[in-house]
């Protein structure tokens, strides 16, 4: 960043480069938003910004789950499948069982927590490596979600494998979770995302429990010696991650109003990307909930702008990848040269 030589100045330079690294993502964000707003004024109006937040809300919530598993030194690959299964589970509960919103939501959240618990059992008790355990869970769920309906998508009037027709329908109150907005401006999913972000931010950054979670990821042995139960912490992380993923699934279901076999396919990649971009935010170089939310919003702002400017979808995938590469380079490359 600078070519200054004398010792006094070099420490000033270091401070400058640290400051730039800490705010790099935000600087890029401002440049990007300004550029898009100039090219297409409709980009910057409040309704569009809310649409963007709504579009990223599910990814941000899932990303927060990934962040917590990353904090304990793990990795949850099953979140996309949990979210997709939750869409199916919510649809099944309402259309086949005829349940309402007050039964469906707790049921689906419970399902997510249960998956997290099984993940934790595999990882903590059976000592299966995190990646493998959650990958296996991903496959399991991808198949499991198809069994109740024999592979059919779930919508009103579904014909069940036994030949009878399902009589239930989506509860209108359930659809409000995805489709309503507060004061006609802030969509409900955005509010849910904000609540999740605040609660998890406080939990991970401001409590003893949060410090222990990060300590588990940093040095498991030291955490154990400090008197904390590593298995309990890991279990907590995976249960949180599974529950958050099913919350994301509930929002998707409430938006689309049907259970489709293909739902949630891209959610895993997008939320992992958000969590990784989050490393670069504030120059923290570690998983953090705030960074993940910023990462998700960053990608959302970028994709919305590109769509408005008519960029085809494959350039969008490329750009998404480029942002991720850039963020990782920022996190690791610049971080290391600074540490030297």
């Amino acid at each position, binding site marked *: 960043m600078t070519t200054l030589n004398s010792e006094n100045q070099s420490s000033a330079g270091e401070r400058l480069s640290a400051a730039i690294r800490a705010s790099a993502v935000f600087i890029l964000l401002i440049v990007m938003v*300004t550029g898009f707003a100039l090219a297409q004024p409709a980009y910057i109006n409040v*309704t*569009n910004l809310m*649409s963007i937040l709504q579009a990223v809300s599910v990814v941000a919530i899932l990303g927060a789950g990934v962040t917590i598993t990353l904090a304990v030194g793990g990795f949850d690959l099953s979140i996309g499948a949990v979210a997709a299964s939750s869409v199916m589970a919510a649809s099944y509960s309402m259309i086949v069982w005829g349940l309402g919103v007050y039964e469906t939501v707790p049921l689906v959240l419970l399902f997510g927590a249960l998956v997290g618990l099984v993940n934790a059992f595999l990882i903590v008790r059976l000592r299966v490596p995190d990646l493998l355990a959650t990958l296996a869970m991903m496959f399991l769920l991808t198949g499991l979600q198809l069994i109740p309906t024999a592979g059919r998508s779930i919508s009103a009037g579904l014909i069940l494998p036994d030949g009878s027709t399902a009589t239930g329908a989506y509860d209108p109150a359930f659809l409000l979770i995805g489709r309503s907005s507060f004061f006609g401006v802030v969509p409900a999913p955005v509010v849910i995302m904000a609540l999740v972000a605040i609660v998890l931010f406080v939990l991970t950054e401001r409590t003893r429990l949060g410090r222990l979670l990060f300590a588990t990821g940093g040095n498991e042995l030291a955490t154990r010696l400090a008197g904390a139960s590593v298995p309990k912490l890991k279990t907590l992380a995976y249960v949180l991650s599974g529950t958050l993923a099913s919350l994301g699934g509930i929002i998707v279901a409430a938006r689309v109003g049907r259970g489709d076999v*293909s739902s949630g396919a*891209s959610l895993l990649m997008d939320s992992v990307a958000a969590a990784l971009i989050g490393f670069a935010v504030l120059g923290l170089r570690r998983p953090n909930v705030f960074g993940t939310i910023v990462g998700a919003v960053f990608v959302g702002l970028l994709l*919305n702008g590109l*769509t408005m400017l*008519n960029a085809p*979808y494959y350039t969008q995938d490329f750009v998404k990848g480029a942002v991720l590469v850039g963020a990782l380079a920022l996190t690791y490359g610049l971080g290391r040269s600074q540490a030297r």
Partner: protein
Amino acid sequence: MKHLTRTLLGGLFAATLMTSPSFSAGIDGAPAPFDKGDVDIAVVSFLGGGDWLQAFEAGVKRQADALHVNLTVSQARNDNDTQRSLIEQAINLGVDGIIINNGRPEVLKDVAQKALDAGIKVVAYDVNLDNPQIPQIEQSDKDMARLVLEQAVKDKGDGFVGGAVYVAGFAPLDRRYAVWKDFVAKHNLTEKATWGVVNDTVPASVADQTKAVLTANPDISVIFTPWDEFAKGVKLAIDELGVAGKVKIYGVDISTADIQLMNEPDSAWQATAATNAAVVGEVSVRAVSLAIAGQFPGTSVLLQPTLVTRDDLAKGEIKTIEDLQEKFPAFRKSDAATAEWIPAATN
């Protein structure tokens, strides 16, 4: 200083983004707003790729260029939630019209209504949004079935013994099969069997079923396949049984793969009827443009299909859908949703 930086950055961005559509001139004699130009239309497709979508989008672009319309084209890549977001985005963009290409009714009904509430005209292709303000663009399933079955009667005469591949519960298939039932009654046909299945491997499963049916009913000489995946399965079975000389297929739909199957030496697949995806795109743009100009095209815009026989393919040396679009004039145009002020799309 801050201001300067912003200007510089802004300028840089604007320069790189200059490729975005600029203001276009209007068309003389066209109703407002087309006389002034600067009409924006968004196209939101459920699919993410494939031959059909490519042809559709090419047609959309041709007609939009002829009308001097600015296009925003986006694909939801089979993701319901994304399709909703893309439509919301088009609403935020303040376009004049939205073309919704495929998708699920329960996913899209309320956002489509939101667009209408915002004063945006909406048309939908192949997804029934059940809204009197939204013109539904559809291919005429009845006419498709009628065209191929008339050809079958022409080839085989009244009173032939036939079978149909059919699965209930899919609206287009139901409509096509109803026409077959009419033909059976009107032309004194014998319907020996009805079979079919819809799963992940339709052609292979239908082939297994067809073999059993043909073995049990060797007098069947015509098989009606209201969907091209069914036709593929039936053709596989006929080839494996070696009865291509005796049993003929009359199908619906067309793709490059289908054309190749029909072109095979001694292929049992005699005729098919289909609409051209590029023409669907052109008609969609015309329909939404009529709506924008205040000339509502009606709640239903029907596309007339074209009959394509083995002979047609052989005569024109047609090997792909592109060939068909080029060399088979009937496949190229539709007079659905036209008006004098709308210039024809040019290739």
